[in-house]
């Protein structure tokens, strides 16, 4: 196992390299640049700006210079927010997004799993239908609907919570964003858990245990759970990577200073360095979480073996 992990980490390096290269060139091919805007620039000013940001050098030279900066840990200044380096922006935003994402993920995994297990154990009865209905509703309502509704009801009508803002990380400011993020995930996890739990409960060894009279709730759940949890783990990996790197809708509607908005804004603004920063960030998260998922597979299911 240790060798496997090591091997995966080593192969992560060329993967990252490939991702960075591909993104770099894809970015430059896109129409429009960081300085295309409503007030167009006079040709001289444009030339000056391009010189300052080294956009007038041939593409391969820009690429190499970016690579060497990257290897020294320098992501460069943001093009559209030149007062800040990309590292500055991440230093401020990442902890925020991680806090919200981790809370949402935890909530989703716990509540979703519990709901899914209950539904599976009471399959085709009232509780099951209720859970399925709620889960369906939860996964069909988009975040950009939940968020304003939450604001309308809890912030404006009831005035229990603020409308928006991070408030320096106050708990009361986090409720809205976390709930909005978590709701669709709870729904998805509940359905996945229900589905795979139902299957696991039908497995031979469970039926054997039941037929032998070992109907203890905990025993059945514990054994079935082992098999049922695999799709959840598969799902949780990429979900974690996505949640921890923030959601653009939640951050925009709730005015949260996270990094999620950068994924969209930077791309739309052609902020080259910031986009590259987000690419590297998400690549690292995805690689790490995928590795964790694969390790978890092996731990949970002894039939899974890695050479």
């Amino acid at each position: 196992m240790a060798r496997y992990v090591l091997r995966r980490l080593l192969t992560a390096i060329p993967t990252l390299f490939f991702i960075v290269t591909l993104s770099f060139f894809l970015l430059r091919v896109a129409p429009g640049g960081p300085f295309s805007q409503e007030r167009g620039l006079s040709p001289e000013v444009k030339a000056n700006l391009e010189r300052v940001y080294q956009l007038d050098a041939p593409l391969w030279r820009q690429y190499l210079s970016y690579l060497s900066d990257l290897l020294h840990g320098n992501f460069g200044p943001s093009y559209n927010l030149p007062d800040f380096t990309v590292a500055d922006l991440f230093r401020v935003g990442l902890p925020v997004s991680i806090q919200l994402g981790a809370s949402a993920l935890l909530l989703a995994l716990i509540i979703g799993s519990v709901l899914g297990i209950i539904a599976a154990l009471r399959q085709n009865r009232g509780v099951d239908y209720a859970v399925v209905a709620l889960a369906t509703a939860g996964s069909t309502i988009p975040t950009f609907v939940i968020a304003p509704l939450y604001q309308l009801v809890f912030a404006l009508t009831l005035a229990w919570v603020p409308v928006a803002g991070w408030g320096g990380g106050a708990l009361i400011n986090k409720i809205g964003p976390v709930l909005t993020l978590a709701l669709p995930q709870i729904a998805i996890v509940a359905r996945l858990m229900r589905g795979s739990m139902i299957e696991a409960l039908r497995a031979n060894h469970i039926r054997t245990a039941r037929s032998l009279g070992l109907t203890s709730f905990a025993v059945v759940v514990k054994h079935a759970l082992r098999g049922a949890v695999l799709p959840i783990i598969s799902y949780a990996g990429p979900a974690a990577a996505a949640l921890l790197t923030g959601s653009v809708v939640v951050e925009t509607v709730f005015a949260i200073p996270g990094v999620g908005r950068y994924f969209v804004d930077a791309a739309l603004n052609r902020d080259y360095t910031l986009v590259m920063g987000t690419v590297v960030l998400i690549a690292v998260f995805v690689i790490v979480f995928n590795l964790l998922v694969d390790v978890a597979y092996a731990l949970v299911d002894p039939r899974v073996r890695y050479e």
Partner: protein
Amino acid sequence: MSDVAVDATPTRIAKGRSLWTDAWRRLRANRAAVVSAVYLVMMTLACLVGPLLTGHAYTTIYNDYVRVPPSLSPYPQPDQVEAALTDAARRMRVDLVSWKLEDGRVTAAIGATRPIDPRALRYLDRSSSFKDSRVETTTPDGLGMTLSATVAEHHFLFGTDNTGRDLLTRTLIAGRVSLAIGLLAGLTAVVIGVIYGATAGYLGGRVDDVMMRFVDVLYSLPFIFLVIMLVVFFGRNFVLMFIAVGAVQWLDMARIVRGQALSIRRQEFVQAALAMGVSPFGILWRHVVPNTLGPVAVYMTLLVPQVILLESFLSYLGLGVQEPLTSWGVLIAQGAKNIPSANWLLLFPSIFLTSTLFALNFLGDGLRDALDPRDR
């Protein structure tokens, strides 16, 4: 060795039941699934045929009815007639002196400081509230005129949107787009994802590694950027939308299927098949894939909503279906921004979307239950 003689007389050969027939029968017995299937068919029909029946085109703008709430009674409502007349008078550059309404026909006296151009009547007709207008009388000096027109009635059962277009028709048209994108992209994602994931999981080892690394790479690309690229190279068409969305969604499916395949390939029946000399492809097709169908079916019923929502997110960013076409996601995104002042903009498209997705889910559940090979 038994020495029972083989009975040579032909007997009626019992018709065998294949697995798929079994599955079909189970599906039909599932009440919720059947109801859902029927609902989906009706929804599809409504979206295909409905727009032709509502009496409105989905692009027609009603100048007088921008952002009006839904109503069972026709527009213009009695208190709006005067406002519509005054509006029309203003455009004609005349003053409204008096008016009366009788049997659905309105008669108005107008006056001006300069001779009134008889063509001014066109404005009355142009107005969404009136039609069949004609000049009744004209004063000799041309400074006054009496006009009459029929009050043109329009029903806006779902109200109108921010531009003055009938929401019911637009919701139905949006359904065409959303359903098409959802099903096409979802199918694309499933087909690619299942084949890819099953192959990777079954073959394992180096091949699995490489295939999954490729998945990682694609995952790590900023999705929005990929879409902008596609938009640049292929232009803004509809097919592009579901390629872009399908291209991203198959990744999740592949991961899940691969996970299942990894554990399935160690099971005895696969080992047995191998021992019997079945080809890897045969094993994939007959054993691995059917056994992954359970979680795949469930995930697919989660996938179609995701696809539709993803498409709405793209439209929200300006990269989706072009005006005047629309989709449920677009309508909902706009509607969400207009609460609490125009709730109907959110309510109706949401009901359509949610009910359709509910139906898809129950159908998917039914499919999963029906295809589950262990349920005998």
